[in-house]
């Protein structure tokens, strides 16, 4: 398991290759990259800055990954979240999950993203034509996380 919070970009190909290197038991790696967009809620976004809570962030991410590992049989998990100032098109977050079969890898990857969005202490501030603004939490993210509790 690898959990990192960093300002630097990450390398999806290298991270996924590292998960399977020297192993022959992995059948599936599902991964996700979230990117900064140039639009949000109808306004152009020139840049964003991600703030976090050092210490708690890593703890919260580890708790989400542990939760995933208790729900599915996973062979490896990598989570990397960037902080600092990012431009549209820049990658923000990487989640990659290795499993024996694809169903569990897909489910766990989406679960980790849904929980990360609602549990990990990151906050986005956007630079728009109308000035800087803190992004508000979305009800759709709460709903995405909540659906894992029913199943």
């Amino acid at each position, binding site marked *: 398991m690898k959990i990192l919070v960093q300002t630097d970009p990450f390398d999806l190909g290298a991270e996924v290759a590292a998960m399977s290197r020297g192993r022959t038991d992995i059948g599936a790696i599902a991964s996700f990259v979230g990117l900064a967009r140039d639009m949000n809620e109808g306004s152009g976004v020139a840049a964003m800055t991600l*703030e976090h*809570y050092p210490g*708690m962030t890593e*703890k919260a991410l580890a708790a989400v990954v542990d939760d995933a590992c208790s729900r599915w049989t996973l062979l490896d998990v990598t989570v990397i979240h960037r902080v600092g100032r990012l431009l549209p098109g820049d990658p923000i977050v990487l989640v990659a999950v290795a499993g024996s079969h694809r169903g569990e890898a897909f489910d766990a990857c989406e679960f980790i993203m849904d929980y990360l969005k609602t*549990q990990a202490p990151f*906050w986005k501030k956007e630079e728009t034509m109308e000035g800087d603004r803190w*992004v*508000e*939490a*979305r009800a759709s993210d709460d709903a995405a996380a909540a659906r894992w509790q029913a199943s």
Partner: protein
Amino acid sequence: MKLRVLYFARLRERFGVGEETLDFAGATAADLVAHLQTRGGVWAEELAAGRAFRMAVNQDVIALDALLPDNAEVAIFPPVTGG
């Protein structure tokens, strides 16, 4: 008790402080919120009942009725928006 209190994101900006150390006579997270509200202004406004803020004690999210241990690191922040 002594508390280290951290503020993040919009609350850090509105309060104009990221971190402070408090001598605090209450017991629970709700007591701390009530104490901070007495500062008035943006404190009363942002921490009013019904406003969406979250609290963590020693880096675990807690509810308002949670007891605060001495020397705790308490954080108050808006709902998270990462990912």
